[in-house]
């Protein structure tokens, strides 16, 4: 199963923020859009990093006026990205072992979406469940 099978199932509503915007803007956007992470993009739309709820909480515990800080201060700029052609299984491994909950999807050097750990696990589980249901139906049929 490939990442593209997941992309077909999620709305690719891209929520982005610029690096010079404040953490207050980031918090507002996260709340308003009901998402867990924002992709930080430069002027050209090129992804520069990702900022998650967790990054903001970490900053909040360190500084009192954290909301005034720029996004660039806390974002993760060492971005791991996926492509639609990537297999789902190794992506799950990476997300689990490196505690990553959101990954930007890049297709032909263009940012096209974000997949969350929920998206990949849901696809993986429903794939397995489908096989279980199919096998179960066949066994029931044999017993009839």
């Amino acid at each position: 199963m490939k990442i593209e099978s997941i992309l077909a199932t999620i709305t690719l509503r891209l929520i982005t923020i610029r690096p010079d915007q404040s953490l207050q803007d980031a918090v507002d956007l996260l709340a308003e859009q009901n998402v867990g992470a924002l992709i930080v993009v430069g002027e050209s739309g090129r992804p520069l990093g990702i900022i998650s709820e967790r990054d903001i909480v970490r900053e909040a515990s360190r500084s009192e006026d954290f909301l005034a800080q720029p996004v660039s201060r806390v974002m993760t700029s060492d971005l791991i990205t996926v492509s639609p052609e990537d297999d789902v299984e190794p992506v799950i491994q990476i997300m689990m072992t490196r505690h990553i909950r959101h990954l930007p999807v890049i297709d032909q050097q263009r940012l096209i979406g974000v997949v969350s750990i929920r998206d990949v696990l849901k696809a993986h589980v429903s794939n397995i469940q489908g096989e279980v249901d199919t096998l179960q139906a066949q066994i029931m049929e044999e017993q009839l």
Partner: protein
Amino acid sequence: MQSVGTDANPLRVAIIGSGPAAFYAASHLFKQEGLQAELDMFERLPTPYGLVRAGVAPDHYKIKSVTRVFSKIASHPRFRFYGSVELGKHISVPDLREHYHQILYATGAQTDRQMGIPGEELTGIHPATEFVGWYNGHPDYGDCTFDLSQRSAAIVGVGNVAIDVARILCLTPDELAVTDMAGHAREALSQSSVQEVHLLARRGPAQAAFTNPEIKELGNLADAEISVLPEEAQLDDLSRAALTAEDDQTTQRKVAILQGYASRKRVGKRRQIYVRFLVSPIELVGSAAGQLVSVRLAKNELYQTEAGTLRPKATDRVEELSAGLLFRSVGYRGEALPGVPFNDRWGVILNEAGRVIDPVTQQPVVGEYCSGWIKRGPSGVIGTNKADSVESVNCMLEDLDSGSILRPSEPEPSKMEGLVRERQPNYFSWANWQHLDEIERRNGEADGRSREKFTRVKDMRAAIGR
């Protein structure tokens, strides 16, 4: 306003398509306690069951037996079938919106992807879907012809469809005789001269998409033997490391099966299936007359992406494989339905968890839903559609509760029936299908087959006295 979903005012639902996703959705709707739902299922063909009838290989009887479950669902008194009725031809989305509270699209993914290499226009090259539709008696493919006088056939891709095509090409007349394959295909395949079938995979044994039962089945055919090149059965360092790290026993088993094939001695069966790994067709070579004669293959090696996937990369090593027939099976996509928002990039209806989304407002289109391959793309097995349809139906139920449904001006079942009769007087009701089903079974019985399919719509009509 009187509430919808009661005896006096049942929830009226139109389901477009009649494959697994359509029937699983119907089943989940009928299961709701306290909800009175009336389901009208519209199908482009006179016959129901989508890919279970027209896609699942004819020698896979057990998989096809799921139709018994579907047939039971169809016996519900509030279920109606409109076969031979096509959305966009006989009825439109606005028509449906005038007659139903909710509409569910479950039309599947019918078209295949191209390979995008030179020579794809040559004679002898076919989408695997065409061949599958042809041998399964799908009326759209009855007139297709395949040059089975060729000695060597190549199949690009190693998903389960590719494996089905390879197996069907290698069945003996005796093996073919007991299947419910279309008569024209059974006859043509019984005379086939194809001796060699080459399955071509871009990546290595550990990344092959086929399942273990499918590849094992390919090794147990009556008059065909399977072989894998020993050097291609060996795992490269990256695959070995990934397999160890993931502790994926299914894939380990798959690799072991393939390595077993690599060390098999030939026993002199009539046909040979070669499963090739780490090769990509880069050009299809034709004769002066435009007939495919060979496939130019680049030898690949694997590299690891940042996300851990092992991807193929062409090396400068090239080989030429002689083949006069080629089937491509490199992915499928859905087709847009007239008047329904579509995500062209992924070949699915634009949706969120099954609710159709308006591309402009990014908000759900009231009353319209989708499920199955047209919702999520072509992934998973038949059973995967169950959970998928349950998710969509749960959205439908939530919206019914919140009152976010269509308010049709003509919800009476007789009104829709009248409209269908007017636009498509030759439509097939469920009773018509049951009649046809019985005739097909009877016609097959005499020769020891589960059924003898009708493959032309006019013959189906004639059979039931139209």
